[in-house]
C-alpha cells in the first residue's frame, strides 16, 4: 500500500511563501491499494487537488472521515468525484449519539454554508456510520476506534498484505496525564497505533504551546514521539501542523524534537504536502 499526503495542515488552510514545503492544505491522505479504487482519509482542502486525479478508470471512491470538524470536510464540496454522475462514492464517518452521518454532513452540504444539497450530488453516494471495530474497504482491512478529541472522533488502522498504516490526525492522548507515560490499557489510540508500520499522527504544538491549549484535542510533538515509541511503530509521520507554523519553524521543531527525544528509536518523517511513502 502506498500513501500520499495531500494536506497536512491543521485547523485552517495557510497560504503564502512561508508555507510552501509543509503545505497549506488541511487534512487529506490518499491510500493507494487496489486498482480502480481510491481510498481517502479526510476531506480537508487537500482533497480538491486529489479529486482532479481521479480518472475514468476509477470505479469506486471511499472517503473515511476521522470527524466532522470543518478542516476535515471543507474540501468535500470541491471533490470532483462527488460531481461525477454514477460514480460509486462511499463516505464513512462517525455518527454522534443522536445524529447519523447524513444528518451531520448535511449541515455543511446545504445552504447557507454550501449551495449544493447532499441529496442533489450526481454521484452514486452511500453514507456509512463508521462501525467501531473492523470492516473491509476493497482490499483494505480497516479498524476504527474512538480517540480523544472533542466530539465523536475516529482513528483508523488500515492493513493490507501484512502492512499497517495508523491514522490519527486529531488526537490528544496526553489529556489528563500529569506526566505522559503511555500505558497500553489506559492510553487513547494505543491499540490503533500498536506495531503499525507507519503512524500518521497529530503533532500540532510545541511543548510550550500545548500548556496553553490542554483539552483542545491536539498533541505536542513530544507526546506524539512518546506514543510512537511506546506503541512500537515503524515510522512516525507528523501531521496537522499548526496553521501559524512556518516551514522554517517546523524544520526547527522537528530538529529540536529529535535532539530532545534522541533515545526514541522511531524514524521521524516530517509530514509535508505531496509526500508519498510505501507502507
Amino acid at each position, binding site marked *: 500500500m502506498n500513501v500520499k499526503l495531500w494536506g497536512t495542515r491543521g485547523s485552517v488552510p495557510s497560504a503564502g511563501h512561508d508555507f510552501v514545503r509543509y503545505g497549506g492544505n488541511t487534512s487529506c491522505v490518499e491510500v493507494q491499494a487496489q486498482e480502480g479504487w481510491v481510498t481517502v482519509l479526510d476531506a480537508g482542502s487537500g482533497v480538491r487537488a486529489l479529486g482532479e486525479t481521479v480518472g475514468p478508470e476509477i470505479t469506486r471512491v471511499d472517503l473515511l472521515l476521522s470527524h466532522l470538524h470543518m478542516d476535515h470536510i471543507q474540501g468535500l464540496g470541491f471533490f470532483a468525484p462527488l460531481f461525477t454522475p454514477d460514480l460509486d462514492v462511499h463516505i464513512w464517518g462517525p455518527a454522534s449519539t443522536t445524529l447519523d452521518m447524513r444528518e451531520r454532513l448535511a449541515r455543511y452540504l446545504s445552504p447557507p454554508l454550501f449551495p449544493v444539497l447532499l441529496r442533489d450530488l450526481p454521484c452514486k453516494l452511500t453514507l456509512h456510520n463508521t462501525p467501531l471495530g473492523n470492516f473491509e474497504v476493497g482490499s483494505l482491512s480497516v479498524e476504527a476506534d474512538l480517540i480523544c478529541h472533542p466530539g465523536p472522533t475516529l482513528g483508523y488502522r488500515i492493513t493490507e498484505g501484512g502492512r499497517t498504516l495508523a491514522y490519527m490526525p486529531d488526537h490528544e492522548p496526553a489529556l489528563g496525564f500529569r506526566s505522559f507515560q503511555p500505558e*497500553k490499557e489506559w492510553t487513547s489510540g494505543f491499540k490503533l497505533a500498536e506495531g503499525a508500520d507507519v503512524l500518521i499522527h497529530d503533532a500540532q504544538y510545541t511543548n510550550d504551546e500545548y500548556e496553553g491549549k490542554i483539552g483542545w484535542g491536539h498533541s505536542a510533538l513530544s507526546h506524539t514521539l512518546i506514543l510512537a515509541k511506546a506503541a512500537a511503530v515503524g515510522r512516525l509521520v507528523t501531521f496537522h501542523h499548526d496553521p501559524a507554523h512556518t516551514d522554517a519553524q517546523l524544520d526547527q521543531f522537528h530538529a529540536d524534537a529529535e535532539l530532545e527525544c534522541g533515545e526514541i528509536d522511531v524514524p521521524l518523517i516530517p509530514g509535508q504536502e505531496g509526500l508519498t511513502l510505501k507502507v
Partner: protein
Amino acid sequence: MAQQPLELILLRQLASYLAVPIWVADAEGNLIYYNEPAEGVLGRRFDEAGEISLAEVGGLFEICDQDGNPMPPNELPLAVALFEGRPTHGKVKMRGFGKPWMRVDVTAFPVEGQGGRVLGAAVLFWEIAAS
C-alpha cells in the same frame, strides 16, 4: 491487558482529578479504577493493588442498608447500574476491612457508549458521618 474504551479512559482521567470517591467498573463488574479518595473506602491503594476482580470486590468491604440489614448482591448500587442499566441513589452503611462503619450516600450510573455499547459503571460515594 487490552486497551479500555475511550469513554472509560476519559472517565478515569476525570475521576483522578476529583475529590469525590469514585469507582469505575468495566462491563463485567471488575473494578478497573478507583481514585485516591476512594482508597479510604477500600483500604488499599490503587497504584499498589491495581484492578480488582468482581469476585474479589465483595470480600473487601461490608455493606448493609441504613437499618443494618445485609443487602442482596443484585441490589447493590454497582449491580443495579451495571446489570439493570439504570442509575440508582441511596443511603447505605459500609466499611472496608478493619475499618469503622460509615454512613454514605451512594450514586451509581451506567456508562453507555454510542450504539448502546455497555461499557461499565461508575459509583460515587459521599460520607454522611462516621458511626
